[in-house]
């Protein structure tokens, strides 16, 4: 048994040493015509894979083993919270207090990255409406984000309009773009939808890049006003705090709104549409209206965040709105657990704070990030927090608590 395992690991080690040989070991300088042989790398790979493959197999085995306790932490916590409103309130209160007092103990840098994380929570929740609830795979979500950002940047720099006036305009405009995208793609299913939305995202970015007279092209728009809080004169640190608190409020509103949405008429319609489109239509749910609603609502949040983004950075250019950005937002949703609000929050914190705190890894940052995405998906394919569906049962309570 143990011998078998060792042989398996040996095989894996040898395979990976072969696999990484040209890229890890040989480094050719084509200019000076010299070859550098880095045999040490091969040794590292061999040893690393030998050890790693044990861990990998052990984790896989553990994952596949059906066990009663598998319904694990997140589900049980959610179930517990749903049935104990007091603990739920207490937890929410504690979190709120933590969020409110956070800036008192942290410096501007920490507050700033936390603000960014909050923005991605909101973006993730917005995309969650489209992908998680309505089941429409959208790879071009960043386009709506760009619409919001450019709306504020342009209206502010040319007409001097203030943040609070543009905020609803940005959201509304993004919603209109969402409907514009929604119409032609209504008939498409699954992955066809994915590529069309991807294309849409790219089109928006390319237009912003090329249409100089309108968007100032790749050099971007600088000198965008920061948000104005009740006409106060704020210095840099206070402004950072201000934007942070604004984002806290925003996030809470979004969580509340999306939570309500999920259990509303339209929310149920989305779920139904996601599960079975034909049955859904037979039941009298309008496909067009429901889908467009999902696109429009999802886009609205992206548009609002776009306005905040432009105001926060005070400079934008099309480089901020690439496909990778869409991919990251989508990863937040899937990683956290589709359709689940705590999942999205957790996903956003991981996806945004992880690379930020991994700055110590410097150049290995993105390597670890990519690898972590794969590993997390392999071992928790349903996401970190699986969607907990509220059940209205009476007797189940004790059993569930018993474990």
């Amino acid at each position, binding site marked *: 048994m143990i011998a078998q395992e060792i042989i398996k690991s040996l095989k894996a080690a040898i395979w990976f040493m072969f696999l990484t040989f040209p890229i890890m070991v040989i480094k050719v*300088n084509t200019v000076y015509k010299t070859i550098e042989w880095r045999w040490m790398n091969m040794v590292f790979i061999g040893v690393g894979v030998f050890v790693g493959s044990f861990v990998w197999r052990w984790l896989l085995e553990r994952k596949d083993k059906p066990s009663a306790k598998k319904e694990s932490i997140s589900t049980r916590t959610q179930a517990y919270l749903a049935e104990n409103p007091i603990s739920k309130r207490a*937890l929410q209160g504690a*979190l709120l207090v933590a969020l409110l007092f956070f800036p008192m103990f*942290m410096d501007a840098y920490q507050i700033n990255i936390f603000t960014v994380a909050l923005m991605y929570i909101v973006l993730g929740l917005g995309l969650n409406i489209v992908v998680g609830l309505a089941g429409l795979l959208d790879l071009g979500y960043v386009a709506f984000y760009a619409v919001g950002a450019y709306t504020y940047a342009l209206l502010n720099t040319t007409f001097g309009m203030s943040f609070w006036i543009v905020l609803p305009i940005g959201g509304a405009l993004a919603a209109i773009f969402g409907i514009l995208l929604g119409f032609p793609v209504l008939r498409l299913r699954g992955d066809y939808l994915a590529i069309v939305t991807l294309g849409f995202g790219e089109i928006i970015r390319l237009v912003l890049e090329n249409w100089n007279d309108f968007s100032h092209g790749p050099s971007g728009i*600088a000198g965008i006003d920061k948000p104005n809080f009740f006409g106060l004169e704020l*210095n840099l640190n206070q402004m950072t705090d201000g934007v942070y608190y604004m984002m806290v409020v925003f996030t809470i509103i979004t969580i509340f709104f999306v939570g309500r949405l999920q259990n509303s008429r339209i929310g149920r319609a989305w779920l139904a549409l996601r599960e079975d489109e034909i049955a859904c239509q037979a039941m009298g749910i309008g496909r067009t209206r429901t889908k467009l609603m999902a696109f429009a609502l999802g886009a609205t949040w992206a548009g609002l965040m776009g306005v905040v983004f432009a105001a926060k*950075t005070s400079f934008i*250019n099309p480089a901020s709105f690439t496909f990778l950005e869409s991919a990251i937002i989508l990863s937040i949703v899937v990683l956290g657990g589709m359709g689940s609000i705590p999942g999205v929050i957790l996903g956003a914190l991981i996806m945004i704070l992880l690379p930020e705190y991994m700055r110590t890894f*410097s*150049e290995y940052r993105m390597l670890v990030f990519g690898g972590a995405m794969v590993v997390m998906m392999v071992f928790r394919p349903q996401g970190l927090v699986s969607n907990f569906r509220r059940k209205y049962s009476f007797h189940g309570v004790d059993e569930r608590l018993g474990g």
Partner: protein
Amino acid sequence: MKKLLLFALAAMFVFAGCSQKPKEEAKPAEQAPAAEAAAPAATGDVIKIGVAGAHSGDLASYGLPSVKAAEFVVKDINDKGGLLGKKVELVVVDDVCKPEVAVSSANKLVSEHVVAVLGHICSGATKAAMGTYLAAKIPVMSPSATSPELTKSGEYPNFFRTIAPDDSQARLEIDYITNVLKLKKIAIIHDKGDYGKGLAEFAKGFAEADKKLDIVLYEGITPGAVDYSAIVQKIKQSGAEVVLYGGYHPEAAKIVTLLAKKKLNVKFVSDDGVKDDTFIKVAGHYAEGVYATGPKDVSKNPLAIEATKKHKDAYGEDPGAFYLNAYTAMLAITNAIEKAGSTDYDKLTNALRTEDVETPIGKIKFDEKGDAIGAEFSVYQVQNGAYVEVK
């Protein structure tokens, strides 16, 4: 068990930050008004200087050389006993050349109490980060951000750079084509990027204002596309005698190669992004005859020779892009701190503007707007596999 879980969940939100930051450091940062944010550094026993730029991602090759340059300069200074009796320490942050990341990086540097910043590398990222530095009163010196707006708009009084702005480069290119090459039909191509398109816009503006050149084509190409034969055919169709390209060397090499393969006899004039030895290596013999503008020749400057030698000794290869500009910037910053005798913002910027400093790119100081006096461009041509300055 359950309570533990709840606790863990609640702690999760707070944990991320708490573990990172000792409390005693957090407090002064919170209370210090922005104007004083730069001052506390001088009270410590080290002088911190920030280095910001793209150190990962597809533009890493433009950012990493500046880190190496800064390390060499700082090592020299510390070996000689430091600045104002204190050791100099670098705080290196990666901005991936993205505006939003640049703002975080800037915040990070401000919270680390750096007294000056070497960077950022890309103009867009620099513009985004400048607001943060201005509020904290930290002078910033870029080795490579060439957008004219940064100095000419007057919005960034704390900005300096050791490279000439794009418009002077475009001016030089257009003058060269008109007066020396004496050609008339010009095709202006750019890579749609901040740098390339900015330069192309200026070139177009100058050409239209001069009324001596006839712009037969003005277009952008997509960097990284698999093939550029269509745009090359279009250049051929337009009857251009000279192509002016704004952008970086990878695409330029592809276009030059295709122009030669399609047997087009046009001159190719480009910019600093192409005046890179990699361009010649990649394009091979097709690179012969290509013109490119770049900072004036410094290969005989003793400081430049020394700086390059250090890099070769340490890494076994020639330094990358903007290495000498970064080296210059680092010398200028440290020199200004020494001359000013303090890390105070006003004294520091004043020293930068008044004190001459010997650097790898010659003797420089900075004008009111932050451009280096003495950093100029000249025209080079590829001859026998190397860039040669042409007069």
